[in-house]
């Protein structure tokens, strides 16, 4: 497609689908094999969060904490104090959901590079329902000084992000999803913490997406192209620190922005971009995401449809925004 080395045909029916969390599991195993300082701890969800690969390879460096997320992150702080690179995982609803103050005091203020891994984020968790569909994690983590916030777009990128986290000396939070989603990047697709990437260049409007929603935005851009609209898609896997340069470079040209994320638009990627633009370049903006409400049980596709988190909804939102300015 361009120098991003994405798959040429992202809507091919035989595109490989894989849960983003699987990429994390592979990345952790890889970096664990390479670096003895990498350790892992989990709160009774070792298979679900895909830490099992690491655990099997390095049982002496794996700690089972039990169902105790406050302890999980604070033990992580202690491990990091002794020079370890601790990855700690649970479902995002419980970590960071259950233990925000411990993360604030013992990791962020204490400046210990703990790697927080929140799996099963977003409504695409599906049947488990609203209690387990974490929507506020990005907002909770991005307000913390020192914290880096990541939401990779597919399993390959999650793998690269995990390796990059181990080398980063700040506290990090990475958001993972449960359901299989298309793998549309390749081994050559660039990833660096702090960078956003123009996946589809365009002139008419800027779509900024993160996590599972980037694929939907890419599909929307293809549909829009057929509609005669030249949309630019920026993939933003690092929500904090936000790549202001890439975003502003785009919005200064298009003057219109739509953000897309599988979480609360308030305080999430939408909030982060709105803050940036309010400060630097006020532009017409629309935030696609969860609109101040919780999810519910259902299959992932039913829920994404209900909450307006599909390529079709992005396509319609773009048309609506362009219509306003006619």
């Amino acid at each position, binding site marked *: 497609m361009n120098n991003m080395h994405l798959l040429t045909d992202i809507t091919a029916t035989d595109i490989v689908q894989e849960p983003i969390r699987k990429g994390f599991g592979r990345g952790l195993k890889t970096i664990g094999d390479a670096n003895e300082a990498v*350790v892992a701890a989990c709160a009774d969800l070792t298979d679900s969060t895909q830490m099992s690969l690491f655990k099997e390879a390095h049982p*002496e*460096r794996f*700690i089972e*904490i*039990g169902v*105790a997320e*406050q*302890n999980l992150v*604070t*033990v*992580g*702080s*202690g*491990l*990091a*104090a*002794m*020079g*370890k690179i*601790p990855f700690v995982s649970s479902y995002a609803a419980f970590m960071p959901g259950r233990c925000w*103050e*411990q993360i604030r*005091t*013992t990791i962020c*203020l*204490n*400046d210990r590079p703990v790697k927080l891994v929140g799996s099963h984020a977003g409504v695409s968790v599906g049947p488990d329902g609203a209690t387990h569909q974490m929507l506020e994690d990005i907002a909770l983590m991005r307000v913390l000084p020192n914290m880096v916030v990541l939401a990779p777009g597919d399993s390959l990128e999650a793998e690269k992000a995990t390796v990059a986290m181990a080398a980063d000396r700040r506290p990090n939070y990475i958001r993972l999803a449960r359901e299989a989603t298309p793998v549309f990047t390749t081994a050559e697709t660039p990833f660096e913490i702090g960078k956003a990437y123009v996946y589809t260049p365009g002139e008419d409007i800027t779509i900024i997406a993160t996590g599972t929603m980037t694929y939907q935005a890419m599909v929307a851009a293809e549909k829009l192209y057929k509609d005669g609209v030249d949309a630019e898609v920026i993939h933003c896997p690092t929500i904090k620190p936000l790549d202001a340069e890439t975003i502003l470079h785009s919005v200064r040209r298009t003057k219109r922005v739509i953000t897309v994320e599988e979480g609360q638009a308030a305080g999430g990627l939408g909030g982060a971009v709105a803050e940036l633009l309010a400060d630097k370049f006020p532009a017409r903006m629309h935030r696609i995401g969860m609109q101040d409400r919780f999810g519910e049980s259902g299959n992932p596709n039913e829920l994404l449809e209900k909450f307006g988190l599909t390529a079709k909804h992005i396509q319609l939102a773009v048309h609506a925004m362009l219509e306003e300015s006619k």
Partner: protein
Amino acid sequence: MVTKLSLDALEKKANDIREDIIRMLEEAGSGHSAGPLGLADIVTALYFNVMDYDPKNPDWPERDIFLMSNGHCVPVQYAAMAHAGFFDRKELMTLRKYGSRLQGHPERTKLSGLENTSGPLGCGLSQACGMALAMRMDHVERKRWIYVVMGDGEQDEGNVWEAAMLAGKYKLSNIIAITDRNNIQIDGPTEEIMPLEDLKAKWEAFGWHVIEIDGNNIESVIDACSMAKAIENKPVMLIAHTVPGKGVEFMEYDFTWHGKPPNREEAKKALHELRTLGGKIRGEHE
């Protein structure tokens, strides 16, 4: 490395530290009085006899670790650190002031020699667990010791018991935790606010070896730490019975002194009492 003091010298050191606590708190105009005074004997025993560390090289890789989990008692730690040579005693008077390294609650990144940032309660033991597990992986488990001072009111926090369970499970025997059992917390006596007893049985049920001591008797603190090191397959909890406000009669046992500093008059009275050991001797500076 710091020189280990004899019992007589330790008792005098604890008294000097109490005097500094009073001066610091009076100068700061805010802070906690009862806890730091009650802990002075324990912290003195640790810093001047029990622990191995080097104030001139705070990151010495073989050092023992001191974690003050109840961060509001940090004035006693600051005073001990100054006496041990981590920084000049004059700096104690900057406690809680703008630009000071001595933050109201301890901040590791501000002052070298601190091992953790604390204040919100219930986290020190979890951090100790992480440190102990890392030491086990590095095969230095029985060579370095982690001392965690905790409040009794702090044990209302669920996080404490999550850590207690983990330390019991992994038999983290290089953790020596010390509960400052002074029976008070901000709102009143612990047994009224949220009963903790039977505290010994609780810790034992979580897989800990428990030793009850008089926390205002330096010799018994030192002896208990030696005993704790001999326990090879369990973490150890010292339930240290202390007198809140110890050494200053009008503060002793009075929970209203938990969270306030002495004013000028009260500080003068307290210092007089400390210098004369409650009227038993004539103060050097009187």
